[in-house]
């Protein structure tokens, strides 16, 4: 690249046409007009040195309409390898399928596409109606695979927290039921203690 000296003629040419033109556009125009071979960068530096500005910011102005507005399904190829409509995934499971969850519970698929329900809850609900709010169904002998209705016990969350905290769930239904009464007593004690503290707080 040889050194180029801008003449006053060149300067006037660029000054007249700089508004609203990109560097590349301006360079091409300049080279064609004068039969020269300047690079884009040379024009850019000339503009900078003479404090010329194209006024372009490269930003979208408010109210700009995107090129694909109102158009649908613009395809960029790859159509041959796309899934067709109604395609069923290879690992699709029909409703009623059973699986063992990561926590060890047996689950049954209840609805498409991905509603699974715990089997022990379903069995309990079939016998006793829906599980009330704030309650859980537990396994009396602590075995998550023992789905015998006799083995399923409904407990409230207040009882469950005490059962887990004090290790009261045993390996037999009757023992666990005794554990639930113990949990009730612990809860009652807590309730009474809180009552005491409140009274003391008011007096003091």
């Amino acid at each position, binding site marked *: 690249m040889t050194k180029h000296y801008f003449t006053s003629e060149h300067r006037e040419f660029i000054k007249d046409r700089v508004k609203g033109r990109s560097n590349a556009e301006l360079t091409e125009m300049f080279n064609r007009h004068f039969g020269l071979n300047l690079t884009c960068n040379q024009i850019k530096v000339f503009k900078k040195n003479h404090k010329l500005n194209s006024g372009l910011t490269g930003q979208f102005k408010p109210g700009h309409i995107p090129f694909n507005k109102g158009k649908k399904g613009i395809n960029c190829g790859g159509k041959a390898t796309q899934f067709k409509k109604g395609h069923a995934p290879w690992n699709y499971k029909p409703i009623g399928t059973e699986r063992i969850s990561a926590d060890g519970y047996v689950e049954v698929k209840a609805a498409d596409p991905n509603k699974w329900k715990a089997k022990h809850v379903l069995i309990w609900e079939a016998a006793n109606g829906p599980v009330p709010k704030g309650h859980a169904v537990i396994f009396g002998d602590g075995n998550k695979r023992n789905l015998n209705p006799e083995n399923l016990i409904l407990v409230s969350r207040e009882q469950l927290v005490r059962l887990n905290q*004090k290790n009261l769930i045993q390996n037999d239904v*009757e*023992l666990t*039921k*005794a554990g639930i009464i*113990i949990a009730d007593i*612990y809860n009652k*004690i807590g309730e*009474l203690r809180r009552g005491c503290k409140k009274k003391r707080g008011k007096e003091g």
Partner: protein
Amino acid sequence: MKNTLGDLNNHLFAQLERLGEEDLKGEKLQEEINRAKAISDIAAQIIANGSLVLKARMFMHEYGNGDHADKKLPPMLRAEFFRE
């Protein structure tokens, strides 16, 4: 051994009822709470023991050899918790 799980349950229910009485106040209430705490702690131990005995039975059933199995068990586990 005469005490069964049913007796334990009766004791626990009785305690729960005593706790629920509304005219308990001050010292009396504190006393009742302490008693309830003691009873429930012991009851928790009892059912844990029951679990252990049951587990021992299960292992005996699985690995034991008939009449001699009872003699091989350590004395602590010879309690017959579920006699009824």
